[in-house]
């Protein structure tokens, strides 16, 4: 059993006991524990079930590479599935539950997958099965597969925690706070660089304090403490623990994932902080990860990485078992045996797969009385939910059992792989190091940044430098190089001298024993979470899935939540062997961010809820809010769709607003309309290029409605242009078009006609604009101004400056509603005052504010087009019968050449007409007019479509506009418009102007 030792536990404060619960069981841990060490201290080795076979799973690692031990952490709005226990710091009151089993962790029905069906479920079985009968896949097989996969429960509630983003800029970012990272940061800092050093764990120093050796003659921990003190005293160095380098992106962009309060959930402040860092140089001192060995039963709880066994003993004072068999192909695992022995635990044997055995550490182990067997390995592990023993065999053989040894834990080591993820994210290449049996960064092929130079330097174990002395020297030169590359020439100190016992050469062992038969290979796990075994990779290779990506995708190797940190190298070695090719020829799969999973909340940051996309507000927004506005999102704005009175439906409110406006007086908040100033000696020339109309001839004091097209010929925006003076135009655009049209103008001015003397300014938000419409509009205006706004002084399509309600204003005689209408434009800060004054003065006329829907209906009654309704990016002005707005005199305007193309100049296009249903009903939105027959693809032939359709309260019937094939030539024809359900609505082609065809109402 696993338990807490009386001694050891360098990271613990045993004086503080912490209560926590696992699957409802109340357990105790101590300050400094991870959830993993606390569970192990309580003999809770079994913590979950695997993905496919639901095999019992125990803790196998001690860090972020853990594939098995995932729990559901917390409750309700703080619940988080798939949390790794190895990187979860224990806190008082922690609650967690195990995953992927039913009805319980100890007794899981899903284990049948393993016991009965495993042999029927090899890699890729689902591609070969469930093909017949067809409906069963969706309704039976797939739901079953989905339910049995999936690991953690889905959260249900809204996140209760907060998150934030940081921007940060450093010369040198060092990722990894082990001794190499500390030394690299020190070297770079001493040279004068601005340095950030981050460490994902809550402790500095990495493995060195566990693994021992000496640095400048001292204990590694003393070096760590001293170096930290030095770094803290340097103003140009920033230190952060609990922060992981999550990803490296182009041009030196680094993502830092700081788990600020995961360990203290009741503390104030954000739970996670996402650092978006720009680094001149990045030093990856990310260490190395130990590889498992592939022997039968290597997935049984109690089989653990040798380094993890050592970590639990040294860091947390936890023994994994009373009797631990160590199995290895390298010297490092001997440290584990020695550590356990020194802690008073039994190590029945060290099985060293190397015929030649180990070096100095092996001698020491033997001296301590540990039995060391060379050239031996494990044929199989005994046990179900817990290791009970191992069968020993010759590594060179096929698995004949030589001896069985009782034990309750197995510590395995297949060698170490540098953590090259961050090096690789942005294109850094790897080389295969034959001697050390590992991929390590190729210093000649670092990821390159904006200058084309490399911007990542690997250091220490992450660079394949495993020996303590080597790692420190490497880190020193990495730190110096990084500082130098960022222009810092200060003098760094020298690397300290690290000393540790030298290791004998590793011998690659990808399968144990080397000639393992198929029965053993079917029990030798590569990917513990996804249940991928040696036999699966070999099957993939046999079936032609020869690319490493094919093998991965076919077997799901490395696709679990650990992204293959333990399994990938072993898997691709098996694949290479199966294909009879060298490992580098097989290559690796692509390393992608993040290094370990990061919360989606941290990525969203605080731009959620009300700050997700802040709402733009007009000066009158609050008034609308207080007066029953039923809002409609329009671009970044909200506009009142209508103003509901209490007890009134949305539809009734719209009808009332229209009637009141047509009969007397209505006010529209038109402030969202785009307003762009175009000014300069060449402004007229420029306007003539922007608009299809001739604008240069417009007289100051006059307005003209204009159309704008893109260079591709399609109608993009419309609006009224007012000429302010000889050199100045004010262009009104649609609400959605304000920013894009301004950008469009600037683009042409800056990149094509840069010699033209024109300035533009987007003044949309500088002005509040109010449409005053209706027969009483002049009357209400006259109440508020002494200036002359008579038809003689201010004729239709004219504008002038007046003072209204004491506020200086521009007034435009333009109309979108078809009524006598004035648009008042005042400085934004006066908008609300003017609105209030108009409401007050209008009271005697029965004034109503009206919203966007009333505006839409009234313009449709008048047959005015709406960008976005009559146009959709495929419509040209000619389609809308707006030839009057296309100047024939101009040689050029944007879109003119495009409109000369064959299809666009074709007279046989769909063109704008009015539509009236024969029964007076409202045509459905978006309905199409059908023609006879079907096209070559069997689709019903079409001859038109509805672009706008409304109930017109003015006419008390449905009205619509639409684009119809040669429509204007077919007045009076009745077309069939099928509804979605197939029933037909008949509508007659009519003039698009339904109301006041001669414009008598607006022109008074």
């Amino acid at each position: 059993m696993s338990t807490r030792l009386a001694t050891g536990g360098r990271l613990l404060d045993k004086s503080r006991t912490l209560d926590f619960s696992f699957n409802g069981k109340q357990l105790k841990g101590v300050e400094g524990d991870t959830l993993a060490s606390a569970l192990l201290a309580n003999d809770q080795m079994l913590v979950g079930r695997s993905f496919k076979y639901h095999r019992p799973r125990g803790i196998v690692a001690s860090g972020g590479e853990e594939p098995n031990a995932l729990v559901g952490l917390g409750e309700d709005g703080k619940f988080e599935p798939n949390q790794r226990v190895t990187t979860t710091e224990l806190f008082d009151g922690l609650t967690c539950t195990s995953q992927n089993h039913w009805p319980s962790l100890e007794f899981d029905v899903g284990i049948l997958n393993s016991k009965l069906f495993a042999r029927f479920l090899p890699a890729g079985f689902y591609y070969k099965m469930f093909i017949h009968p067809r409906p069963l896949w969706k309704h039976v097989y797939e739901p079953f597969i989905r339910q049995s996969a999936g690991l953690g429960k889905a959260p249900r509630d809204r996140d209760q925690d907060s998150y934030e983003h940081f921007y940060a800029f450093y010369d040198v970012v060092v990722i990894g706070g082990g001794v190499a990272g500390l030394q690299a940061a020190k070297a770079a800092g001493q040279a004068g660089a601005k340095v950030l050093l981050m460490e994902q764990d809550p402790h500095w120093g990495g493995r060195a304090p566990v693994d021992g050796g000496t640095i400048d003659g001292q204990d590694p921990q003393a070096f760590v403490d001293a170096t930290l003190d030095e770094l803290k005293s340097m103003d140009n160095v920033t230190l952060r623990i609990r922060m992981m380098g999550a990803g490296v992106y182009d041009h030196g962009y680094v993502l830092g994932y700081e788990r600020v309060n995961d360990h203290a959930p009741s503390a104030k402040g954000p739970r996670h902080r996402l650092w978006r860092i720009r680094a001149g140089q990045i030093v990856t001192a990310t260490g190395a990860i130990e590889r498992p060995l592939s022997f039968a039963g290597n997935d049984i709880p109690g089989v653990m990485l040798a380094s993890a066994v050592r970590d639990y003993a040294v860091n947390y004072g936890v023994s994994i078992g009373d009797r631990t068999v160590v199995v290895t192909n390298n010297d490092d695992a001997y440290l584990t045996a020695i550590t356990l022995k020194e802690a008073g635990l039994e190590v029945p044997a060290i099985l060293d797969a190397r015929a030649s055995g180990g070096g100095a550490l092996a001698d020491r182990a033997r001296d301590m009385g540990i039995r060391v067997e060379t050239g031996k390995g494990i044929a199989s592990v005994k046990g179900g939910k817990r290791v009970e023993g191992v069968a020993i065999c010759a590594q060179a053989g096929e698995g004949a059992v030589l001896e069985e040894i009782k034990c309750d834990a197995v510590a395995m080591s297949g060698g170490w792989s540098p953590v090259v993820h961050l090096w690789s994210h942005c294109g850094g290449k790897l080389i295969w190091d034959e001697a050390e049996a590992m991929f390590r960064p190729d210093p000649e092929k670092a990821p390159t940044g904006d200058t084309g130079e490399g911007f990542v330097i690997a250091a220490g174990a992450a660079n394949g430098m495993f020996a303590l002395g080597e790692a420190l020297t490497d880190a020193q030169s990495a730190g110096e190089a990084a500082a130098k590359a960022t222009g810092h020439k200060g003098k760094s100190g020298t690397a300290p001298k690290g000393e540790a016992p030298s290791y004998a050469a590793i011998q690659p062992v990808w399968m144990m024993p080397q000639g393992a038969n198929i029965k053993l290979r079917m029990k030798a796990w590569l990917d513990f979470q996804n249940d991928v075994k040696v036999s699966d990779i070999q099957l993939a290779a046999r079936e032609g899935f020869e690319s490493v990506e094919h093998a991965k995708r076919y077997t799901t190797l490395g696709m679990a939540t650990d992204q293959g940190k333990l399994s990938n190298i072993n898997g691709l070695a098996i694949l290479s062997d199966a294909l009879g090719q060298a490992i580098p020829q097989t290559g690796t799969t692509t390393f992608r961010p993040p290094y370990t999973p990061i919360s989606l909340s941290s990525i969203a940051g605080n731009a959620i809820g009300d700050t997700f996309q802040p709402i733009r507000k007009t000066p009158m927004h609050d008034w609308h809010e207080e007066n029953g506005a039923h809002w409609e999102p329009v671009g970044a704005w909200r506009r009142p769709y209508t103003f509901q009175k209490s007890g009134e439906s949305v539809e009734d409110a719209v009808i009332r607003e229209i009637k009141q406006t047509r009969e007397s007086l209505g006010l529209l908040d038109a402030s969202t309309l785009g307003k762009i100033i175009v000014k300069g000696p060449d402004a007229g020339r420029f306007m003539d290029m922007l608009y299809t109309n001739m604008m240069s001839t417009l007289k100051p004091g006059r307005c003209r409605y204009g159309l704008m097209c893109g260079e591709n010929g399609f109608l993009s925006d419309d609006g009224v242009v007012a000429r302010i003076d000889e050199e100045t135009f004010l262009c009104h655009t649609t609400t959605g078009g304000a920013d894009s049209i301004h950008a469009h103008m600037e683009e042409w001015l800056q990149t094509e006609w840069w010699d033209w003397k024109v300035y533009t300014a987007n003044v949309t938000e500088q002005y509040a604009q109010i449409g005053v419409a209706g027969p009483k509009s002049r009357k209400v205006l006259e109440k508020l101004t002494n200036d002359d706004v008579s038809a003689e002084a201010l004729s239709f399509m004219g504008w002038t400056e007046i003072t209204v309600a004491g506020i200086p204003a521009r007034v435009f005689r333009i109309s979108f509603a078809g009524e006598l209408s004035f648009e008042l434009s005042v400085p934004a800060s006066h908008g609300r005052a003017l609105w209030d004054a108009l409401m007050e003065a209008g009271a005697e006329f029965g004034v109503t504010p009206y919203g966007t829907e009333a505006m839409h209906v009234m313009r449709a009654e008048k047959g005015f087009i709406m960008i976005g309704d009559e146009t959709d990016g495929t419509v040209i002005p000619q389609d809308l019968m707006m030839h009057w707005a296309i100047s024939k005199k101009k040689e050029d305007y944007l879109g003119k050449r495009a409109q000369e193309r064959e299809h666009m100049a074709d007279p046989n296009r769909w063109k704008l007409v009015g539509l009236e249903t024969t029964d007076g009903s409202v045509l459905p939105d978006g309905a199409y007019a059908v023609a006879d027959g079907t096209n070559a693809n069997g689709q019903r032939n079409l001859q038109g479509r509805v672009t706008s359709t409304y109930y017109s309260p003015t006419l008390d019937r449905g009205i619509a506009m639409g684009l119809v094939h040669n429509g204007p030539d077919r007045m009076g024809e009745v077309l069939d418009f099928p509804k979605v359900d197939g029933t037909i609505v008949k509508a007659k082609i009519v003039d698009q102007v339904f109301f006041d065809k001669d414009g008598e109402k607006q022109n008074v």
Partner: protein
Amino acid sequence: MLILDCPCCGVRGEETEFHSGGEAHLKRFGPGSSDDDFHGYLFEKVNPKGVHFERWRHVNGCGKWFHAARCTMTLEVFGTYSAQTLEPPQEIKDKITAKRPGWSWREFS
């Protein structure tokens, strides 16, 4: 996440400050031009693997358009320069030649 230097205001900013505007040094063909010329101008982009000349706008900055010479394979930026020119500065062309001997892009090399 690109970093670009705005040649107009001198600010070195990250990608989110800028807006990409596609291929640079387009020659506009208007009314009177042939269908082929107009089509070439509007649609047929070089879209190279390697050295590319493109337009950017410092949209969340000084608002100015400028040109950049950039590698689409490595994202290396060889230089940025004013949009108000008909060809890349010799200095930038020389820099590209030093790093990508034998390069060409439309009529430039």
